[in-house]
């Protein structure tokens, strides 16, 4: 067991995979000397050279388009998108090429591309630096979408994503980069697409992922003081979703609240709700409730804490579901 920040755990994962496989390349803006604006690639260019840790010309479409070509040539590119709000220029390459190429080639060409995206708010940033675009990618067939909530998952899920022969959109909760945690570098690791019960409870199931897992745990602790036992699930994988684990918990609690930062409408919460009400219809004692960002653009940072789901808004939903 080693104590690491999430940033350090991600850096170690990249280093590990690069040492393990010379076909693994890191590419993005400022990932070289600077080590990325969040220092996730810190020191990698020094140790692996400029042709394996590539400062890309300034274009996200170029980064993903080049990644496709590298994959065709047999490489495993790990692309860094500097901030969530800047992935959109690459959206066409991701949706039409990265996600579809393996299928188009009838499985003869693999797309082992990992796209790392620091996402979410709460860091007091300017516009386009606090977004949660995960639903766009989860709705895109051919992609796998995952997100980590702690240093251990950050490390192992990134390693698994890089090892995966399919394209993985890897969302990193940037506001948790500096939180420390235990990482067992020897493994073993949980399967990439498996959800995890991070706090057991019998009254209400709370599903969260990425930056909201810590908030959900705070809410669970607060609820415990009121005598309500919340079971907190870290979804970890958004596509595919580990529906069984969620349904199993709901069968027990009969109540479900889904939490995420992204605008609530057409978000991941909608898919979770749709699946659970179908798979656990008779177990539900209350409708699935969703707590998320509002259906507005991400607000000015001085009021982002009001806009983002917090302990109070989660508890408010918990009270509502218990009131049924």
């Amino acid at each position, binding site marked *: 067991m080693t104590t690491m920040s999430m940033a350090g755990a991600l850096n170690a994962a990249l280093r590990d995979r690069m040492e393990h496989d010379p076909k693994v*390349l890191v590419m993005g803006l400022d990932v070289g000397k600077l080590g990325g604006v969040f220092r996730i690639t810190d020191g990698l260019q020094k140790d692996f050279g400029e*042709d394996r840790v*590539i400062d*890309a*010309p300034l*274009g996200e*479409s*170029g980064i*993903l*388009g*080049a*990644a*496709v*070509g*590298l*994959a*065709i*040539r*047999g*490489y495993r*590119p790990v692309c860094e998108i500097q901030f969530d709000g800047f992935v959109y*220029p690459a959206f*066409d*390459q991701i949706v*039409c*090429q990265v996600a*579809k*190429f*393996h*299928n*188009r*080639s*009838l*499985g*003869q*060409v*693999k797309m*082992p591309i990992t796209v790392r995206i620091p996402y979410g708010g709460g860091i007091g940033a300017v516009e386009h630096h606090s977004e949660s675009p995960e639903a766009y990618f989860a709705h895109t*067939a*051919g992609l*796998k979408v995952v997100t980590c909530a702690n240093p251990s998952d950050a490390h192992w899920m990134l390693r698994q994503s890089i090892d*995966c*022969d*399919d394209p993985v959109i890897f969302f990193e909760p940037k506001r948790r980069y500096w939180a420390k945690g235990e990482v067992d570098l020897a493994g073993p690791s949980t399967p990439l*697409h498996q959800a995890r019960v991070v706090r057991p409870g019998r009254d209400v199931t709370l599903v969260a992922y990425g930056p909201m897992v810590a908030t959900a745990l705070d809410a669970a602790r607060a609820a415990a003081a009121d005598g309500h036992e919340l079971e907190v699930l870290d979804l970890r994988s958004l*596509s*595919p*979703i580990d*529906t069984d684990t969620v349904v199993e918990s709901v069968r027990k609690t009969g109540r479900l609240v889904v939490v995420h930062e992204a605008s609530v409408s057409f978000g991941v919460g909608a898919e979770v709700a749709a699946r659970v009400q179908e798979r656990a219809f008779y177990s539900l004692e209350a409708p699935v409730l969703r707590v998320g960002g509002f259906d507005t653009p991400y607000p000015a940072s001085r009021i982002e804490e009001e806009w983002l789901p917090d302990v109070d808004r989660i508890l408010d939903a918990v009270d509502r579901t218990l009131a049924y």
Partner: protein
Amino acid sequence: MSLHGHVPPEPDLVQLLTPEGIRVEHPDFPLSITDDEIRSLYRDLALVRRFDGEATALQRQGELGLWASCLGQEAAQVGAGRALRKQDMAFPTYREHGVAWCKDVDPVTLLGMFRGVSLGGWNPNDNNFNLYTIVLGAQTLHAVGYAMGVVRDGAVGTGEADRDTAVMAFFGDGASSQGDVNEAFIWAAASNLPVVFYCQNNQWAISEAVERQTRVPLFQRASGFGFPGIRIDGNDVLACLAVSRVALNEARSGQGPTLIEAYTYRMGAHTTSDDPTRYRLSDELETWRLRDPIERVRAYLVREAGVEQSFFDEIDAESEELAVRIREACRQLVDPNPLSPFDQVYAEMTDELAEQRAGYATYIDSFESATDREEQVAR
């Protein structure tokens, strides 16, 4: 002083064989080629045109859902295709049937996506010919990434003829306006990549004339990015071959990217769904007929190389055989299994998708027979 108003001179275009079939020399691009080689170029041109025409016919007969004909662009494609070495990688659009031919891709392979039985389906690494790319310009960035891999693999500038590798990215005059194509120029220049950008300016992007995209010749675009650009007579297979060879050699030897503008003409419709009479005049077509890429080679062979009629008869016979084979093979292309869409989405299928597949399989089985199904629909 005024920044504007400087009229650039009309660019000269590299030509080695005139429309009349006269062999001319170009000071910068000498080409030593035997008449036998020119005969084999003629053969490629003729077979490609025949196969392309057959595909158009198959679409008319309902065997294909769509066809994008390369009629008129055979020289541009065969010239480039013949300049490519086995190890060189081609990134085509959806119209490079002539390049596919030179890369030994069976024409029938290309029909799958146009018939609607696949989305492409071949392995780009089998013949170093990428899947057709429909989203305009996207493939130019794929070429860039592939070239980055080539460099990292040490397959540039070694001097070994069958090791040094170049990449050729094909795109059209219309696609040149896409951001992706310009980003590809930037990446190729900044990293001095072994990419030859091959733009077939066939004067039209569906109904939009090339003037809608640019007011200066497209080959000039390259100079602004810091690499050479050149315009060639895209209906002159010798010019296309000669200039492509030079550009590919320089790419393989590590001298970086080139932009070649093959000045040609789309003699047919954009695709079989298009009706060009709505937007262009027939006399334009007439003018270009006189510049036909195949006729001039034939004229040369007859007049300058004394090739007999028997040669052309052989080619015609071979073309017929090819057409027959393609027609039959096309009809044999079977529809995919309804469950196949699930099978290649991922290299590692997800449980979720496997479950969805199983559910659909059960659903299909629930219809004992096709007739039952008809009834059910008719209920």
